[in-house]
């Protein structure tokens, strides 16, 4: 038997339902989004030809070959400083985040003022980009790694608190209630009732924050807050493109490797 095209016997005359019209706001929203995109595109100087010609721009040749000798002689120490900033900031930021997260979680906070207060302050802190903090600190306490470390501490704190307090929210309230019913003080009850459950997450998030910090720390130097970005900024101002390329490649290799290690450890943890 072959398939027969055309109406088959027994098919009735049918009246298909009418396609419901889109709600009026659908077109309004679509038009607004398109208009905003076009306008933004013009304001930022969007250009398809620029996009298309980008890979074939002759200036790229100035980036090649990287000046490795110079890079290894001058960029390694600042690079190490970068990672020291990241390590210290991760540690301090995550430790500070521990009490704040418990104060900020619906489950463990028992004081409305600290709950809403910490939430509001943390939300405010999060709206300011990390590099702005770094620049503020550079202005206040002077150029150098200290300012960068403080900037990243603020950054780590705000990310960690957000992730961790939501994990605490989702924790099982049973053990906490049991500990409190047994007469434990609030802090002690949280310690035995909630902490063990969320601790693995805490460690995993800390590693994740470390990955973020590694990436964030390499640009701190652009505002004078220490690390390898300082070298990048100097070479940038002297148009030493081959050195810039060398630093960027070095950064990429190191950042990529560290990240893979951190990801591997995180997998083992959770």
């Amino acid at each position, binding site marked *: 038997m072959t*398939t027969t095209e055309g109406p088959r016997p027994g098919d009735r005359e049918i009246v298909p339902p009418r396609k419901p019209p889109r709600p009026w706001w659908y077109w309004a929203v679509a038009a607004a989004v398109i208009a905003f995109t076009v306008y933004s595109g013009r304001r930022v100087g969007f250009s398809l030809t620029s996009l298309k010609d980008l890979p074939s721009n002759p200036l790229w040749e100035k980036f090649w070959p990287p000046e490795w000798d110079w890079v290894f002689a001058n960029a390694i120490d600042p690079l190490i400083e970068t990672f020291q900033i990241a390590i210290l900031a991760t540690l301090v930021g995550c430790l500070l985040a521990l009490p704040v997260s418990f104060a900020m979680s619906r489950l463990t906070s028992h004081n409305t003022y600290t709950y809403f207060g910490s939430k509001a302050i943390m939300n405010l802190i999060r709206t300011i980009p990390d590099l702005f903090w770094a620049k503020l600190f550079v202005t206040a306490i002077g150029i150098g790694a200290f300012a960068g470390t403080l900037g990243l501490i603020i950054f780590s704190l705000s990310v960690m608190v957000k992730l961790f307090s939501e994990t605490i929210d989702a924790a099982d309230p049973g053990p906490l209630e049991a500990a409190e019913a047994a007469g434990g003080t609030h802090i002690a009850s949280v310690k035995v009732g909630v902490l063990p459950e969320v601790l693995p997450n805490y460690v995993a998030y800390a590693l994740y924050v470390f990955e973020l910090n590694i990436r964030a720390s390499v640009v701190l130097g652009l505002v004078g807050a220490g690390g390898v970005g300082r070298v990048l900024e100097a070479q940038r101002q002297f148009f030493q493109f081959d050195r810039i390329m060398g630093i960027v490649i070095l950064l990429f290799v190191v950042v990529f490797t560290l990240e893979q290690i951190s990801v591997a450890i995180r997998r083992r943890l959770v």
Partner: protein
Amino acid sequence: MIEFKNVSVTYRGGVKALKNLTVTIEDGEFVVIVGLSGAGKSTMLRAMNGLVKATEGSILVNGTEVVGAKGRRLREVRKQIGMIFQTFNLATRTTVLNNVLMGRLAHVPAWRSTLGLWPAEDKERAFLALDRVGILEKAYVRASDLSGGQQQRVGIARALAQDPAVVLADEPVAALDPVTSHQVMGDLQTINEDLGITTLVNLHFLDLARTYGRRIIGLRAGELVFDGPIEEVDDETFREIYGRAVTPDDLLHEGAEVE
């Protein structure tokens, strides 16, 4: 006509799901395939449209070889075969009509369907299919907003929209309640009788198999252990196919009461 000749299917892990199966199904038959879980029922159906690759033998669908078919030729075979799934397999976040139009994919040039520029005639067919299963008025409703029974009807309409010569239904009512199950099986029966579409249905409820099947195929551990018209089937037959006594769980009606 569908001809299985010495068909075997070995899965990648080494499981032999079909062993040397030889069966012929004539046009317009209503065949029910029964067997224990893991007997190879799904494998048999899916081998017919190439969703599972047969590792040996030959499967002819209206004279076209399915085994080894690829690309355009495989799609030509699939065009003639509608399939209905246990879990409906609907794109739940889009309209019923879009789901049914999926049945027209093989009939419409790829660029038209991809852009959603369906020809009027194909839309008409989708509507006809929806009308046949009685949910025409739901055409523009999101698929996720339908009940289970209605969703399976969309699945049937999608198969019908293909204008198929064959419909394969893999446990089409396993996710439905008893009343809806009978309605859906009734739909399949009507389609088979009215349109003459060859229909193969996997079922694990034996009372349903008896009510709707005109011919029963029994599989056990990948082998054909029974093949005959419904008139020859009695409790003893099922006992042989299953290799154990029939229990209330094997019956839709009593299974529902047991729950």
